């Protein structure tokens, strides 16, 4: 029998859980947008710096919610899965005909679906606030594909942490660590305009910078092959490693014979 209905059922559960838990569903939508609007209001003047790529700081910042939202998704999916481990729900799943990979794919499908909802929301807010997408409709499609891969990759990272640590509290403790990567990146300024050497070096070494710059290029620059290759390359790499780690952790956690 095909495992597709099982994947669908697990994904549906993941979405239903998020939808029925406002504390999980609302922050990933509201906080990134609130942060974007606050930063845009406060840092608009930095667009006058020579070499700043756009005259709208809002357009410049619109890339950030896509990554920040994915970090929220990491925490939500990780916490949900960790709760399943803690409560023994994973044993209930292990006692069914569910295949290991179907659990992981279903769980990630739920995260990806949430990621798409988030992407639509962020983009809608951006467009409503007057942001013009430089690459037009094809660029929006590429942006959605990127957002989907980001959700998948970070979702897998969350699943891996959940299965390894087995506690929701541990996942939540990891959240600030992930956030540090976001803040030590080109989130607030283009790397070539960062004046502090150590910060510029850290931002250059930080893969999150390239993910933000990939989205940013689609919004404010136009088709930039280098930014796209680097962004997709880094997130693809993180995705492959995260999925491999999560699969292995799942096999160890679902120790059925």
């Amino acid at each position: 029998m095909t495992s597709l209905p099982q994947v669908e059922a697990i994904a549906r559960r993941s979405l239903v859980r998020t939808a029925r838990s406002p504390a999980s569903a609302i922050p990933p939508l509201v906080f990134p947008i609130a942060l974007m609007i606050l930063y845009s209001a406060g840092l608009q003047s930095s667009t006058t710096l020579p070499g700043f790529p756009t005259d709208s700081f809002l357009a410049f910042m619109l890339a950030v919610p896509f990554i920040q939202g994915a970090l929220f998704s990491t925490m939500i999916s990780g916490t949900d899965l960790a709760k399943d481990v803690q409560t023994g729900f994973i044993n209930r799943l292990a006692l069914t005909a569910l295949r290991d990979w179907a659990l992981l794919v279903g769980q990630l499908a739920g995260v990806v679906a949430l990621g798409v909802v988030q992407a639509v929301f962020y983009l809608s807010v951006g467009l409503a606030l007057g942001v013009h997408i430089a690459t037009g409709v094809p660029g929006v499609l590429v942006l959605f594909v990127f957002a989907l891969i980001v959700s998948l990759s970070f979702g897998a990272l969350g699943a891996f942490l959940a299965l390894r640590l087995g506690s929701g509290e541990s996942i939540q403790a990891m959240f600030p660590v992930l956030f540090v990567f976001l803040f030590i990146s080109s989130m607030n300024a283009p790397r070539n305009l960062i004046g502090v050497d150590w910060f510029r070096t850290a931002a250059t070494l930080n893969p999150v910078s390239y993910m933000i710059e990939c989205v940013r290029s689609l919004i404010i620059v136009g088709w930039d092959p280098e930014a796209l290759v680097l962004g997709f390359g880094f997130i693809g790499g993180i995705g492959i490693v995260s999925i491999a780690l999560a699969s292995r952790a799942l096999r160890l956690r679902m120790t059925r014979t």
Partner: protein
Amino acid sequence: MAGDNGIEVHGLVREYRKGPRAVDGIDLAVAPGEIYGFLGPNGAGKSTTVHVLTTLLPPTAGTACVGGFDVVKEGPRVRTLIGVALQEAALDPLLTGRDHLRLQATLQNVPKEERPARAEELLHRVGLADAADRKVAGYSGGMKRRLDLALALVHSPKILFLDEPTTGLDPQSRTALWEEVALLRREAGVTVFLTTQYLEEADVLADRVGIIDNGRIVAEGTPAALKAEIGRPSLHAVPRREEDRAKIADFLTRFGDPLESTRDVAIRLRDGLGLTDIVRAVDAGGLEVADLELRAPTLDDVFLAKTGRTLEGAAEEAAAEEHGRR
């Protein structure tokens, strides 16, 4: 015998890496359609045995066949035959009862067109039809247990594992669950492997009982046969005046061996004696008792005879050991 829907276990051992030998070489056989009660205190090895038999834990040594399939080599085939309600009714508080059944039915490969009817039937069966669309977070302990049972039955299993299914339930919910389990065996011929720390549960429900202590089966048989092994009933006398307790205790030793009891004076009656003999003797001796009762042996007496402890005492010891480890 393990073919069809029986269970057969030989020399089963399960050791935890840094812990004790939770299961220490047990042998047991459960016939198809039988209700087997696995009785023992906390920490005796009941749940570990269930985890091994339901493929959640590999054994350290020994073999176990469930429904004719080896639990180590044929785990997926075993899982298609069994329904399991583990000790903790692990449910998702954000899902409704119906959501759970729908999810479980899908994961157990119940055909799509049959799922709604199956869910409805089980919700009615366990008395949750009215609460079907409420989130599980608002269910009582008894409702969660009933939903857990319904989930275990969703794919019409031939063998049912129930790990302490009535722990924490009120007497009414407990009785309802017993009736349901008995009905399943009677109507569908389901084999039931039930762990419990309640003597009454094992006594009322099980065709045969295995008593486990420290990972080993110390006694096995029908409740009647196990109690018959103990043979002699006990006599319990309540003195009318507290100051007569010692005198009555001394007097009663003529009729049997004294038993430890804080509430009354108790003896294990010698063979051939009945209540009337005692009543006459007490009367003739001029002793005043408020109550005199003859009690048939219980499974606790069996446990006491086999382990030197009562079930309650063993549970307290286990709790103290657990506390000490922490």
